[in-house]
């Protein structure tokens, strides 16, 4: 084996993750592993981690993304209840439990690089299935700069810019369902002029079932749960949302610290979070990249929990909950509603939650009262999504600001049905 192969085999494994179960927790687990680096595109990855079962409506996207990995490529399945169906020829490795994840991924990478395992075969065609074809007899002609539909796709036509009506080329495309910074399963269709969003639509229902939230909140809707457990999980949720934003801003070390805090946070440890928040605010890069972006109008974010409070609305279902009354709870809020305010609100609420958890003792929460979840008031395992907010506020935003703002919203669309839901709805057998 050559020296370069030995060096490559010992490197940190670049991994691209597909959260087919609709949850981002696998990406967060992978980010905490030392020998693994989660990358944003499949081209940079050696190993494709497929978390959850691949349902038929996602299969095409999964195959396309798999083919976009450069050779050598390998697949690792995690939490696949139906095993590795659909990947049989690729012979993926399977992660059975979280503590063996790093070992399985690193072994897969080493076997691929050292040639002990063949690269996963391609699913798609090698050549473009649609040749260049114009309208004329010889393949020429048509609309657009070059005529015809080159390789089956039209050229972008001109459109009016919303800023000044200039008729220039507008680019339309769809993003999703698997982008590291977007909620899994969400597909957004955009039209850009330059880098300014002209039109946007999200393929997501208005109300969503909460899949990407801790179990204790779903349990709290039905049964009395300890207040301390509820508030500790609230703090962890907010810290994870902050870490997602920090990773997007390429402040990986701060994102990692936020994730570590999220996993180790315990009742009464609010000072650690406040210290972290102060450290973050002292970095000029954080304030520069998040300040003044996406000022949320209070009317548009009412009922959206921390987003509403970041915009200045002091609404919180815990105000009227008698379990919190004895703890002298009062909601925190910011003023500006920009991304910095949203992030500050999350960290302040996380610190407050740990403080409440430390003083709650054995208090139980009565399920008869409205439950304030980490994304707002929860009603029968559903909460408002931000579909309308995104579609209205994003128009006119520059692309980089839009991405930062969207991640700060921490939206959960849960458009990815689980394998059980899909089978139940369409009566497809497990085979």
């Amino acid at each position, binding site marked *: 084996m050559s020296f370069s192969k030995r060096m490559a085999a010992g490197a940190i494994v670049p991994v691209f993750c597909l959260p087919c179960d609709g949850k981002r927790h696998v990406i967060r687990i992978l980010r905490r592993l030392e020998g693994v680096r989660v990358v944003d595109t499949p081209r940079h990855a050696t190993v494709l981690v497929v978390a959850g079962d691949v349902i038929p409506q996602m299969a095409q996207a999964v195959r396309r993304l798999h083919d976009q990995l450069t050779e050598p490529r390998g697949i690792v399945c995690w939490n696949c209840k139906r095993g590795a169906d659909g990947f049989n020829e690729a012979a993926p490795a399977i992660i059975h439990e979280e503590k063996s994840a790093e070992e399985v991924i690193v072994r897969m990478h080493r076997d691929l690089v050292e040639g002990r395992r063949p690269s996963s075969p391609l699913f798609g065609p090698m050549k*473009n299935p649609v040749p260049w074809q114009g309208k004329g007899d010889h393949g020429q002609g048509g609309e657009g700069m070059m005529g015809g539909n080159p390789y089956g796709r039209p050229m972008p036509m001109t459109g009016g810019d919303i800023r000044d009506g200039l008729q*220039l080329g507008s680019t339309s495309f*769809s993003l999703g369902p698997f982008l590291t910074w977007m909620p899994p399963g969400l597909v957004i269709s955009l039209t850009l002029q330059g880098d300014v969003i002209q039109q946007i639509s999200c393929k997501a229902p208005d109300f969503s079932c909460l899949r990407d939230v801790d179990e204790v909140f779903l349990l709290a809707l039905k049964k009395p749960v300890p207040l301390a457990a509820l508030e500790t999980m609230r703090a962890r949720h907010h810290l994870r949302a902050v870490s997602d934003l920090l990773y997007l801003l390429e402040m990986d070390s701060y994102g990692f610290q936020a994730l570590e805090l999220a996993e180790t946070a315990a009742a009464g440890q609010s000072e650690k979070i406040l210290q972290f928040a102060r450290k973050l605010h002292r970095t000029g890069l954080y304030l520069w990249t998040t300040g003044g972006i996406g000022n949320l109008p209070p009317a548009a974010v009412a009922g959206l929990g921390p987003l509403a409070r970041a915009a200045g609305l002091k609404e919180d279902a815990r105000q009227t909950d008698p379990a919190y009354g004895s703890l002298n709870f009062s909601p925190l809020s910011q003023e500006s509603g920009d991304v910095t305010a949203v992030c500050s609100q999350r960290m302040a609420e996380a610190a407050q939650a740990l403080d409440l958890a430390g003083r709650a003792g054995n208090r139980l929460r009565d399920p008869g009262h409205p439950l304030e979840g980490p994304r707002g008031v929860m009603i029968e395992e559903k909460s408002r999504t931000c579909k309308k907010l995104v579609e209205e506020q994003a128009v006119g935003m520059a692309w980089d600001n839009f991405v930062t703002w969207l991640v700060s919203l921490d939206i959960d669309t849960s458009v990815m049905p689980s394998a059980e839901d899909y089978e139940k709805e369409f009566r497809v057998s497990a085979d």
Partner: protein
Amino acid sequence: MEAFLSILIVAAVVFVSSFSVAWFFRQRDPVKHPWSATLPFLGGAIPPTHAWNQFHMRYYPMTLLFIAFEMEMMFMYPWAVVYIKEGVKAFMEMGMFLAILSLGILYAWREGALRWQ
């Protein structure tokens, strides 16, 4: 003539050797790219159109400012030549000229022409 010949020989050797090395390694390990790999990464979606479109740079305000202050520099070059001979009077006159133009900078600043959009 000999110098040109030697350069030509060196260039030919470099060309031939670099292409030979590239061809040799290409034969040994040819890269196979499927069609999906040639598409831009959109998280699993296929782009509906090509990305060849016109992009307006919107630099008009910056260009106008540049031309205005370029003309200012055009006046300052001959002034710099005679400044030592003319003394304080030349300094005062150029100061007034720059002060008037500075009002233009303040106006452009207020109107947001210096903001990077």
